[in-house]
């Protein structure tokens, strides 16, 4: 049994498909590419593919991760080429590397921080995102109400935000870089940060792009190093 981890992009063309849609699309592409996929047992066997933290509907990314279990060894670069030939527009494998089967399953689940690049167009005059961002970071607590399908809950947004950097701002557009907690143990949505900075809502046109996923734990450091090496940093 071999395991290959892929970093892949979800672009504009497919930014509105849900995480479940994405998984189905990827797995169908793997079947079209005739990858030697390992399957789960039972009446409804599924390919043994695991994914890092789900990307929100409407966001793009070039930092998504998935781990594929294979029944026979395959050169990761060949896998990447073959899969890319079968992926719909907007999806692309950027890197693929082989790992021992036990490792990535845990480390993908441990991805608990993410970087976002946010581009905003709209009436930004007087909004002062830069000043508001530093005020936000100086506060001890930022209470917000998160509305879900099943009721709403109050939470403190502040500890879920590691960094806000306003790279560019003028009266009509701005670019922000965010580092946020993510993953199953609770995270911040970039839209919530924008709302807290007073630059959310329909008068703004917003493009949100996930540029990196991290694991902050000890095993995460190893993955980070590996990723950095692979990116040639």
């Amino acid at each position, binding site marked *: 049994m071999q395991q290959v981890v892929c970093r892949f992009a979800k672009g504009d063309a497919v930014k509105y498909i849900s995480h479940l849609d994405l998984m189905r699309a990827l797995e*169908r592409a793997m079947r079209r590419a005739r990858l030697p996929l390992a399957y789960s047992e039972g009446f409804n066997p599924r390919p043994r593919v695991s994914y890092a933290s789900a990307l929100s509907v409407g966001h793009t990314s070039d930092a998504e991760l998935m781990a594929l279990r294979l029944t026979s060894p395959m050169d990761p670069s060949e896998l990447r080429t073959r899969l890319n030939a079968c992926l719909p527009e907007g999806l692309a494998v950027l890197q693929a590397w082989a790992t021992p089967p036990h490792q990535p399953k845990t480390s993908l689940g441990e991805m608990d921080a993410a970087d976002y690049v946010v581009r905003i167009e709209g009436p930004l005059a007087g909004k002062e995102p830069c000043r508001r961002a530093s005020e936000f970071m100086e506060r001890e607590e930022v209470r917000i109400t998160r509305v879900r399908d099943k009721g709403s809950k109050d939470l403190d947004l502040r500890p879920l935000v590691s960094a806000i950097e306003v790279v560019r701002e003028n009266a009509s557009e701005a670019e922000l870089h965010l580092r946020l907690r993510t993953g199953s143990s609770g995270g911040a949505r970039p839209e919530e940060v924008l709302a807290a900075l007073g630059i959310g809502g329909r008068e703004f046109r917003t493009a949100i792009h996930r540029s990196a996923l991290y694991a902050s734990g000890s095993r995460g450091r190893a993955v980070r190093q590996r990723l950095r090496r692979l990116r040639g940093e």
Partner: protein
Amino acid sequence: MPTPWDDILPYVTKPARYTNREWHAAHKPLDRVSARVALVFPDAYDAGMSHLGLRILYHVVNEREDYAAERAFSPWGDMEAEMRAAGLPLCSLESGTPLADFDLVGITLPYELNYTNVLNVLDLAGLPLKSAERDRRHPLVVAGGVCAANPEPLADYVDAILWGEGEEAILELAEAAREARSSDRDALLRHVASIEGVYVPRLYQPRRDHGRFAGVEGAVVARRVVADLDAAPYPTRQVVPFVETVHDRLTLEIMRGCGRGCRFCQAGACYRPVRERSAATVLRLAEEGLRATGYDEVSLLGFNSPDHSQIEEIVDTLVERYAEERVSISLPSLRIDTFSVQLAGKLRRVRRAGLTFAPEAGTQRLRDALNKQVTEDDLFQAARAAFEAGWHGIKLYFIIGLPGETAGDVEAIADLVLRLREMGREILGRERRGRLRIAVSVNAFVPKPHTPMQWCAQDAPESLQQKLSLLRGKLQVKGVQLSYPNLPASRLEAALARGDRRLGEVIERAWQAGCRFDAWDEHFKPQAWADAFAGAGQDVAEWANRDLDPAAPVPWDHLDAGVSKETLHRQAEVVAGALGAG
């Protein structure tokens, strides 16, 4: 890739319904083709992308190098509100081209309860609603699908109806529609009326006598039929949706038509004759289709797939060939016999989902009247085989409100279900009987055009309600799940199914009152429809709950399904005779 809706998509549910870029979606430069065809399904994307007819026509048109077909679906309520607020028209998915810019707009009519969505599509496209108000500035609007069996309620709103099968006719219509912008509209309509299977309502004048329909002037239109199904084009590079659709799998149509002759069902007349694709063709299509799509399930489609003369060869080969790739095979329809149960035993997906049988009625008298050639013994043997082979769940379809039905006939349904349950519990034994599930799906009888029961009234709502209550009372037992119809919606379906052009105004009024997606229980607005009937001076009971005079003309007399009226009359007499015997 920008869509016309970029600014509103972040604010609607399931935005991927409106974005496309799916695998195998066809993207042709529209300015370099000679015929541009918009194929519209008047329901949500998830329902429309499960429709085989749409997939076939999309394939056939796009196979032609110089033609292009793109798709459009009904926007959900929130999307419609956003589109109207922003002043954005309904556009095709592929290139975001407004429907009004196509040469041909082809609308599928899968169900009577989609009619308000048809008007909504025309309106959102910015087209005048009525055919008489459209001219050379507009695309040719053609509708087709099973409701073409009696399209009269929509006759004023469409330019032409394709009556029958579209594989060949769609290309002839597309060719004609290239002239939509240059030729006089009346000349164009006369031209498309000459295409086999095409009916142009404006060229026909209905007559009335004392408020009753009294026949129509004009030549009879024979249903278009593809002679050789095995040689007919079939898509293997099927569009693979991102959004989960109702039938999310590779669909292979292995046969068309139904030879069973159930007297309530339109399939016998409206899809005749029975034709098969050969095992060799089916296996080739399966191989190409699975490779091209990556689907992990193949559905062998047909009204009675187990009736296919080579069904065992097809199923055995598919199961063996694709077991390693975990492809599951499904048969959407089952006959009530042990052969079908054994066949289903080979199919993993069916094993999980349960078996479906359609006895339709609780007594032999009614089953005989329906020509449902199945006895209680057949049903018990099939169910026994299923339980013994390890199934815990079966699903049963019944119709209530059949003509001549008594309380005893309805009680017999409950009795049948309870006895099947007893048998199931016995076979499954102490350990597994707790898992027994008998799903009982009850529908109200809807008289449909071109069937021997087209003249029969739908049962009155109060009577249907009583029968449902009776079933509910008797079937409140562990292991039985009863699902029943929305009765006002069934009544509307019956009225529209047998309606004439006067119902167009009812549909338009309902649409103006906000009716959309009437087939979805949560969207159906009974009061708005009642008001629409009243406003148009029509009585829904007159259309739905009245026995028609067999000697009088019906609004679909000029549409020939291939079954003579004499045959229908004879069959209707057999129904009456069988019911009288009770």
